[in-house]
């Protein structure tokens, strides 16, 4: 009834090309932004930010990054954990080597360094495809984790091999270290997420994104119509790793504060982010958000319901949590193989016709 294009007139090409062509969507988007920036920071406490918002925001950045590579460019990657580790260690080295530089730039630079590493490990994608590429990126995962464990320079020769984020401030407000307040870390990560999402959205619907999608759909055909596979694949690896590096840097510096590479950035992290992308929906920015939200919030929700609400033993609850999350993933993928994003798309189509579907 109210969700349709009819009556929403556009008078310029810019207006026609905007991200949310339907007025209702647009309003919803602005409201969401307003709530995220102006309401949430005043309401959250340490628990909300550390258990729910930070992991959601940071995983959403990682999922957007991986979605560009897997969903838009069709290059399967299992190296996400390793690339997040690059971002984290780059950020750590920068933070400790140049303490006078603002943490904001360190995070961006960490993304840049990860982009270079990502391009390097993306080179094999020019020759190998599909499962074989997955195995090559898996090698990157193991190599990078091994490297950060092996070379003491990366962890500043600390006895335990742990890296810990020192306190750094932004406009005088601490955003890393122990004395942070909930709203500061939340806003810091939110700004990065919004920026990343905007960049990703605009890249994917522009020329770069169309090239990636051409490569994804059929690389030979793409080459024939003039897409340079080298450039397309390398930019996809670069941009994707850039986002993943930022998420890794935030994951270490803002969220956890101390990190051990094998535990925090192991192979399970790669799978987790890949699951987020698949469940959320390949080739969709909204899907990255939905997938991250699903896999971050559901375990916390289940834990609170089963242990906090029903008072069950923690081990039974933890086992049940695995069962329920697993069963839901399978159910979702059977019911909607294209992920939560597709579910949302279908809902929107239905909404357009509602209440007169015939």
């Amino acid at each position, binding site marked *: 009834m109210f969700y349709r294009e009819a009556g929403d007139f556009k008078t310029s090409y810019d207006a026609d090309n905007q991200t949310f062509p339907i007025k209702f969507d647009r309003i919803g988007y602005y409201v969401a932004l307003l709530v995220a920036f102006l309401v949430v920071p005043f309401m959250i*406490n*340490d628990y909300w930010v550390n258990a729910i918002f930070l992991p959601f925001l940071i995983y959403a950045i990682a999922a957007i990054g991986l979605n560009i590579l897997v969903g838009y460019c069709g290059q399967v990657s299992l190296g996400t954990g390793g690339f997040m580790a690059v971002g984290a260690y780059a950020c750590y080295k920068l933070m400790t080597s140049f303490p006078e530089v603002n943490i904001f730039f360190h995070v961006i630079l960490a993304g840049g360094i990860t982009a270079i590493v990502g391009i390097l490990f993306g080179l094999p994608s020019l020759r190998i495809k599909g499962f074989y590429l997955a195995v090559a990126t898996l090698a990157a995962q193991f190599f990078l984790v091994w490297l950060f464990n092996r070379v003491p320079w990366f962890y500043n020769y600390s006895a335990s091999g742990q890296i*810990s984020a020192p306190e750094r401030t932004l406009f005088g407000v601490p955003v890393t270290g122990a004395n942070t307040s909930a709203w500061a870390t939340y806003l810091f990560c939110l700004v990065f997420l919004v920026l990343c999402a905007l960049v990703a959205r605009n890249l994917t619907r522009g020329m770069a994104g169309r090239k990636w999608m051409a490569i994804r759909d059929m690389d030979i055909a793409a080459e024939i119509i003039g897409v340079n596979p080298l450039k397309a694949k390398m930019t996809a690896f670069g941009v994707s790793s850039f986002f993943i590096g930022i998420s890794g840097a935030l994951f270490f510096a803002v969220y956890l504060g101390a990190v051990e590479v094998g535990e925090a950035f192991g192979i399970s992290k790669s799978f987790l982010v890949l699951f987020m992308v698949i469940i959320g929906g390949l080739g969709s920015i909204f899907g990255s958000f939905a997938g991250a939200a699903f896999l971050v919030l559901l375990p916390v*929700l289940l*834990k609170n319901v089963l242990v*906090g609400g029903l008072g069950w033993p923690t*081990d039974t609850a933890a086992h049940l949590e695995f069962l329920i999350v697993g069963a839901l993933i399978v159910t979702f993928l059977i019911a909607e193989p294209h992920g939560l994003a597709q579910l949302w798309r279908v809902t929107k189509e239905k909404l357009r016709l509602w209440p007169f579907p015939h």
Partner: protein
Amino acid sequence: MKLKLATMALGAVMAAAPAMADLVFPSLSYRTGPYAAGGIPFADGYADYFTLLNARDGGIGGVPTKLLECETGYNTEKGVECYESTKGEGALVYQPLSTGITYQLIPKVTADGIPLHTMGYGRTSAANGKVFSNVFNYPANYWNGASLIVNHLLEENGGDLKGKKIALLYHNSAYGKEPIRTLEELSKKHGYDLTLIPVDHPGQEQKSQWLQIRRERPDNVIMYGWGVMNQVAVQEAANIRFPMENFIGVWWSGSENDVLPAGDKANGYKAVTFHNVGSDFPVFDDIQKYVVDAGNAAGAGDQIGTALYNRGLYAAMLAAEAAANAQKIHGTADITPAMMRDGMEALEITEARMGELGMPNFGPSFKVSCENHGGPGTGAIAQWDASAKSWSLISDFSESDMSVIQPLIDADSAAYAAENKIAEGCK
């Protein structure tokens, strides 16, 4: 979005129900995952002691205790969630039983003013209370463990380890890397060769490591392992017929779960321990009477008297004693985390008190001070008897080589203080 709203609504309900009247002891346990074999008995022991206090004495100083259990799965992200969800409920002391989570919590607890007790694990240099005001690791730490093992080897070899080959098989994480510096320093002092053999998480695959041991034939293997890694290592050692009496684990590699899977072949395996073994103490009669017979035993109730159960019990006892001490110092039964910290820093465990608690000779008697949060660092060697299926102490509790360890503690804590701009001093 709906999911988010539902979570928010639920979380609000959860957060709105704090029980401030009780003495809250959070238990960040792990009963699932590759480290559950170690996590379950410890969590059971920790829980049972507080159940016992409530049933027998009506709590501590007349105030009932409340145990908040939260499953971490040995995972740092879940550890953060557990910490944040329990700290608002008046948590008095955290014992995460994970070195990774400890590293993360050290700055957080210091900022929040809650004490952290990492008994025999965590950051070893936290023994320097002048830098780590809220972190305690009495009565012994990783470096004490390494030194105690070397002392035992010295004793076996008539005080001379020159030219001996010793291999360190360690969990490739902050935990496993902790003893390396100490063992290197000790190797300079005693002249043995040290080989480092890392095992990656979770440690189910150790074929190549044991092939290396088979090839290099070290005289002794020291193990810093945890969880499933321990049993695999003992099994692999049995497979290559490595003499078990030359294989020594730290206290985290010395539980029944680690040696039982290898059966008779594990006979003679050794581990260092900082508390006594077995269930031959009066306190276990009380546990049977007030906890088990009342049907309140934590978990499956089948762990009582095992090495790690005893450690959980010991940890709970030390926490309860510190709480009682805090009540005495501040003259109030309803203590805050800050008072608890004072109670821990002024804690004194005497042999007489241990006897009163029904745990005579269970652990060392010691006194905590601001300068020394690490306790005496004493320990003994336990050996596994596969036919009797029990551990028995084969040495007395003895001192570790503090002349090597203390400079390392001072250097590492000074580095931490400089990194985080902490002024050394007592509160």
